[in-house]
């Protein structure tokens, strides 16, 4: 509580989130995030290729642990992220209104994000039951197919929201056991960074989610061509960018997932298919011996 109107406010430095820590961009560069009226809101990190490469290392290191946790445990952590976001609702509403949303729209956006996190928390230990199969092969084998996470995903958050698009990508991607490096909205970067603080207080291991800010056009080629990234996600209806992405991704066959027709603020934007978009399918065979009377099989 400010005692008097002459008390000076402490301004927040918006650093990035890599490997569970909050470093500044190694490039030392910044850009000015401003609202529609041109009012400067913050000096935001203009992330570099090196920041991205460091993030991939962090995400890769975190992948083995995150993907081998019990699905239930991942669900608990996503629920905790929702708890933390709910606790900080007022802060996020204020930050969104600074970035030109009306108060009502800001509240709706934050509540959608909380509910979306709960939604995906519930899917963590259930999508496998819907999308797996025991296959009735004709030979005497026990044969089953299961989804497995792709690995490290490099994502560009939908650019026209500060928080909702970011959360709508992060949640299904990590719910499925992947780790992620995500570039926030260039025009409205603030909530991405504040969301990192929410993640950081949610028992989420460092490196599972890494959040960068900067220019899409500068960083997209690096997202596309990094040889230790398993999949890239992009949400803008920009043909040239999509073509660049798919072209460079061919180098290591990384999976390119384009989500440019989503209405993020509606229920159609959340589904287990968003999780499956970032899953492989593994099929396993094991013989069933056929000794004695009736034939055995599944």
């Amino acid at each position, binding site marked *: 509580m400010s005692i008097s109107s002459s008390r000076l406010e402490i301004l927040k430095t918006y650093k990035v989130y890599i490997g569970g820590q909050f470093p500044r961009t190694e490039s030392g560069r910044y850009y000015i995030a401003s609202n529609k009226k041109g009012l400067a809101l913050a000096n935001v990190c203009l992330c570099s290729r090196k920041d991205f490469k460091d993030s991939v290392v962090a995400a890769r290191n975190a992948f083995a642990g995150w993907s081998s946790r019990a*699905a*239930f445990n991942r*669900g*608990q952590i996503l*629920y905790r992220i929702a708890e933390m976001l709910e606790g900080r609702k007022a802060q996020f509403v204020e930050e969104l209104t600074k970035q030109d949303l009306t108060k009502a729209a800001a509240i709706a956006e934050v509540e959608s994000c909380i*509910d979306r996190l*709960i*939604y995906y*928390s*519930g*899917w*963590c*230990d*259930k999508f496998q*039951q*819907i999308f797996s199969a025991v296959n009735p092969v004709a030979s005497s084998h*026990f044969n089953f197919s299961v989804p497995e996470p792709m690995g490290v995903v490099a994502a560009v958050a939908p650019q026209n929201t500060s928080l909702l698009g970011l959360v709508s990508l992060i949640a299904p991607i990590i719910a499925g056991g992947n780790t992620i490096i995500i570039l926030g909205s260039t025009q409205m970067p603030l909530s991405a960074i504040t969301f990192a603080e929410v993640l950081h207080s949610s028992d989420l291991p460092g490196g599972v989610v890494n959040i960068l800010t900067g220019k899409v056009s500068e960083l997209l080629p690096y997202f596309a061509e990094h040889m230790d990234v398993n999949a890239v996600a992009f949400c803008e209806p920009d043909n040239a960018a999509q073509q660049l992405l798919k072209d460079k991704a061919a180098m290591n066959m990384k999976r390119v997932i384009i989500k440019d027709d989503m209405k993020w603020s509606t229920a159609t934007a959340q589904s*287990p298919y968003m999780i499956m978009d970032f899953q492989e399918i593994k099929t396993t065979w*094991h*013989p*069933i*011996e*056929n*000794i*004695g*009377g*009736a034939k*055995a*099989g*599944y």
Partner: protein
Amino acid sequence: MIFWISLIITIKIERMSKAIKKNTIQLKFDSARVYEPALESKSAAKIKPVYDLFINGKFEKPLSKKYFNTINPASEEILSSVAMAGKADVNKAVLAARNAYERTWKKMPAAERAKYIYRIARMIQEKAREFAIIETLDGGKPIRESRDFDVPTAANHFFYYAGWADKLEYAFPNRKAMPLGVAGQIIPWNFPLLMAAWKIAPALATGNTVVLKPAETTPLTALKLAEIIQEADLPPGVVNIITGAGATGADMVNHPDINKIAFTGSTAVGKIIQRAIAGTNKKATLELGGKAANIIFDDAPLDQAVEGVINGIFFNQGHVCCAGSRLYVQESVYEQVIQKLKDRMETLIVGNPMDKNTDVGAINSREQLATIQRYIKLGNQEGAEMYQSACALPKKGFFCKPTIFTNVAQSNRIAQEEIFGPVLAIQSFRTDDEVIEKANNTAFGLSAGIWTDKGSKIFNLTSKMRAGVVWANTYNKFDPTSPFGGYKESGYGREGGLHGLFPYVKLV
């Protein structure tokens, strides 16, 4: 003279080497069971002296005006006095559930319903130690089991089903899943809190409301759950918890405004229920008794198998519907396995359930102990050979020594009927076909255990067991995502997993 001495020496050496080969060297267990007491403190648990019925969001005095005591079976001391719901109380509870269903729960968006169930899960986690202590005091199971298994699994069950509430359209392709209405649920005394979770969670997730009756000897954790339900602000009447005995259950089964009966308990009562609802529109799921066979093949990892068998029959004092209460051992490893079993039994600590060292706690009630003792006597009469561990039993309370029977015949009553205690009936076998036939040859079909190192044999056997749950190279494993339920007279319907949603929906 020298001839006779050397003959005697030769015979003695032969006997010794035979004993070493057969692994019949006597192990000494005098110090095995002597541990310093490691008592859990009761201080974290608050038990009220009197509990009323939880109806419509409040604790209400029973219209029957009757109460009954619940005791600690390890010490026989009275823990609390709980209400005995009479017919008028059952009517009141069902009416509350019906009103809550029609006016509130049916209309609530599924994602909001989910949030209430998540609250319940999180609050159980917050109060985990209190629940574990009360479960042990009221039911007699070791504190290690309440703390490490019952309570976390119950919380996880609520958390799992909370997640399904707004996702039912994915669970049933091409169908819309509608709730049934009011579910009447009757649960047993062997896993009181866990059984309450197994019943309430899927019912709420699919949009039904609930009237639940805990078992007569173990009402307390269900009543603690009622307190959490109040704290979670669940709309009044969505869950009602009424304590009582067999008559209360019968009143629920016969109530005309209940759409669905869910019962876990003995096969005998399950049959009574099925007859009682015949000709009505009521749906039912029954999770009944079992007489599961554990099968040890000659290529099984023997030490692990023995550990699995011991866990299978002595975990929770054998008060488990899916307990591995029969054992079939392939002939070539029979003597080794029996010896290992006996040795392992000698290390089991039977005692005060509140002691963290205790492996086998108290039998749940005087009646159940009498039943077990009758079967032990019967086993001896039927010609089987009994072995019990040499442990000392506490002087007060209801306790039973871990018991095995060898020389059992397939038609013996101790091999066919459910004892529900720490008593194992053992037979040997020679071929795969023989043991498959014998394992399936009871009226039950709840579970089975297969022990072999050979993968292809595992899937051969598991596909041939006529049982709803088959464990391969493990036993007594449970998870909220894993469907559980029986074949044949072990009942029908599944609890847990995606298949656990089916019993609570109407597919349109």
